[in-house]
């Protein structure tokens, strides 16, 4: 019998191992690529938000209202320009301010919330006729506010013709127009619009009320589950119900808020529609399962011996709860509060139903409002989405979120160290 070629096992194994090395490298590399995808997406989100919005995040943007208020002023009808001129010696001169020598005012460029150049009246001489401007609608004297910019001015020239200068055309044009004028026929002052002050204040109030409503409820529930509850059917049902409500999407809770809390708060205070209280109650529903879970976890880490010792020393259950359980679960409570703040800042779908959709001129406890997140949603919903402003708000939200998550890590670290001691 002829012998077959013997298989060279060493060679086969070597080849196999070589092949396997490539294959392994490929699989490991692909897992790396997939995890890189997460980092890339995060960088894209952050990068997009920062690059688009950073320029728009100005103090004016944060402090001004969303709605723009305007006032139209003119010189009074019996005003005659004094040909001898006025004494403007009290006007302090700066280099970056342009002055109209005829009217005694100083003009300077500023930025509005769309980052366009606008003209502010920054200085007015005490003797200037600009101090005696009256409102066009009711003729009352009106002092030019410093936070309003001059959008356009229409003047009457010596020849009796009218001439208009717009803010867009620049300061030089404005000043030459003013210098040719004998009276101001119309000057329109606008406040900075498109700001977020209302939404910002509403968000702060909402967070405060949400914490006031949700923390006592959640901590109470957690103490019951972590301290009193025996392992029986009722407890299991309660636990599973609490777990189930954490799986419900927030928009459903928005509906609940609209269906229960708006009529409820309305019947107590006489409001119609959403307000900060209905929003806070709705957020409470969303947060409760998380708060109960977080605080309960922290209560469970308290050593049994500590509680037993307290009871053995004659303290009642109540005393044990307030003197042993609560002080030792403070990290859980803080974490729950931080989680609550983060969720409240970011929540939008539920608050659209429970709080309101329209950006209002002033924060109010009795009518609909918007939080920062709903503000973003609102300004992007229209036909001309305001990406830059939305990104500017997003930067603020993002900063808060990052700070909160760092704070959580810090709290956990500090309390871990304390426990180890």
């Amino acid at each position, binding site marked *: 019998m002829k012998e077959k070629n013997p298989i060279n096992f060493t060679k086969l194994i070597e080849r196999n191992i070589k092949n396997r090395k490539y294959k392994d490298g490929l699989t*490991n590399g692909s*897992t790396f690529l997939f*995890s890189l995808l997460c980092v890339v997406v995060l960088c894209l989100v952050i990068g*997009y938000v920062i690059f688009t919005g950073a320029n728009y995040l100005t103090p004016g943007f944060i402090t001004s209202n969303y709605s723009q208020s305007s006032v139209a002023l003119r010189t009074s009808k019996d005003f005659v320009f004094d040909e001898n001129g006025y004494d403007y010696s009290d006007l302090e001169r700066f280099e970056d301010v342009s002055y109209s020598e005829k009217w005694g005012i100083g003009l300077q460029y500023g930025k509005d919330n769309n980052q366009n150049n606008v003209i502010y009246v920054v200085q007015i001489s005490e003797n200037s006729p600009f101090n005696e401007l009256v409102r066009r609608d009711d003729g009352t004297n009106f002092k030019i506010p410093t936070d309003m910019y001059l959008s356009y001015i229409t003047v009457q020239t010596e020849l009796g013709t009218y001439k208009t200068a717009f803010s867009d055309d620049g300061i030089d044009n404005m000043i030459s127009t003013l210098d040719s004028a004998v009276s101001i026929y119309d000057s329109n002052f606008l406040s900075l619009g498109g700001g977020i002050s209302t939404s910002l204040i509403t968000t702060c109030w909402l967070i405060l009320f949400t914490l006031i409503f949700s923390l006592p409820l959640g901590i*109470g529930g957690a103490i019951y589950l972590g301290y009193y509850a025996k392992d029986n059917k009722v407890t299991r049902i309660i636990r599973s119900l609490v777990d189930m409500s954490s799986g419900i999407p927030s928009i459903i809770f928005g509906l609940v808020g609209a269906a229960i809390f708006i009529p409820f708060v309305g019947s107590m205070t006489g409001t119609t529609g959403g307000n900060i209280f209905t929003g806070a109650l709705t957020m409470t529903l969303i947060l409760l399962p998380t708060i109960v879970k977080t605080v309960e976890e922290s209560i469970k880490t308290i050593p049994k011996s500590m509680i037993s010792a307290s009871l053995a020393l004659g303290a009642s259950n109540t005393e044990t709860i307030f003197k042993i359980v609560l002080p030792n679960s403070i990290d859980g409570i803080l974490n729950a509060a931080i989680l609550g703040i983060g969720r409240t800042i970011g929540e939008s779908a539920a608050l659209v139903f429970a709080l309101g959709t329209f950006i209002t001129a002033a924060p109010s406890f009795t009518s609909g409002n918007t939080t920062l997140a709903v503000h*973003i949603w609102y300004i992007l919903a229209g036909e001309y989405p305001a990406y830059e402003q939305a990104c500017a708000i997003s930067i603020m939200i993002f900063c808060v*979120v990052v700070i909160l998550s760092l704070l959580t890590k810090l709290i956990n670290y500090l309390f871990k160290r304390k426990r180890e001691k």
Partner: protein
Amino acid sequence: MENFVKVKTKNSRSKRKIIVDKIVHLLLFFLVAICASIIIISIIFILIKGIQPFVDNYGSDGKFINQNLGSFFTNSTWTYDGNGGAMFLVLTTIYVVLLSLIISVPTSIFTALFIAKISPRGIKDVIRTAIDLLAAIPSVIFGLFGKGIINPFVYSIAEALKIQTFAGSSILSGALIIAVMSIPTMTTLSISAINAVDQSLINGSLALGASNAQTNMKIIIRSAKSGIFAGIILGIGRALGEATAIQMVIGNSTNGLTFYNIFQPGSTIASAMLSGINEASGFGYDIRFSLGIVLMAVIVITNLILTAIKNYNRDKDGPIRKFIKKIGGLLKNERKESN
């Protein structure tokens, strides 16, 4: 614990303590009862409000307007005049979530594997932090990102393929956003599932001569299957209920017939609930509660199905196997009888 306190004593202070104890106990039970009853009360109120549009009259001047139950299930466009159909919203929702799973499931499983088993420590911390941050970003910022980046991206793809889109607002954009948003949930749960795999299994595989990568793919992922699947179920639950982000990118088309074309705008249940709410009142507002019922039903049914699938392989005598066996037995009997 109560036994410690139940010492018979005539001291009035102790008596007061015991009374206070009982009150506090009751109060805490009351609080936990509120926490637990939230879900029940919510469901009851949404049911009541959601059934209203089918029953009440919303018309004025003698006209009778309410939601037609038949067209609610059959009509292929979503309108606010009483004849809107919601079934296509359900189909689109499921379709978008399935599309998103194509991206999110492999990404989260491989990311979890990389973090738990492969990566060196430095890179691991970076990716972990990235995923934590991704989970912390509010959905409205994802919506902004989708509108600003993903929509133009989808639009340019469609341009290159010469397919018509509505400025990139499409089902594909919705699926991409949903995928990004569900990756953190799925990854976090997958990591804990992979970490929980028995070390002896891994050692056994390595001892048999399998390489690390082979062990990762064939042993670890297979053993962590059930935990990973639990994560996917949770992610799907979140994705089904996501409203703001998807409403901002999907285009909110009310015509449902084109939902299979991923470059066409669509509308999910949650996005239909949210879109146009600025102007809505009366019927247009109340019908959103009916959609709320539909959304909850979809979430519950999807969860039940997925949990059943998850348990199918695990317990040999699970309800589904029993059910299938029963049906099989019935068919056999029938065949015997017919023979």
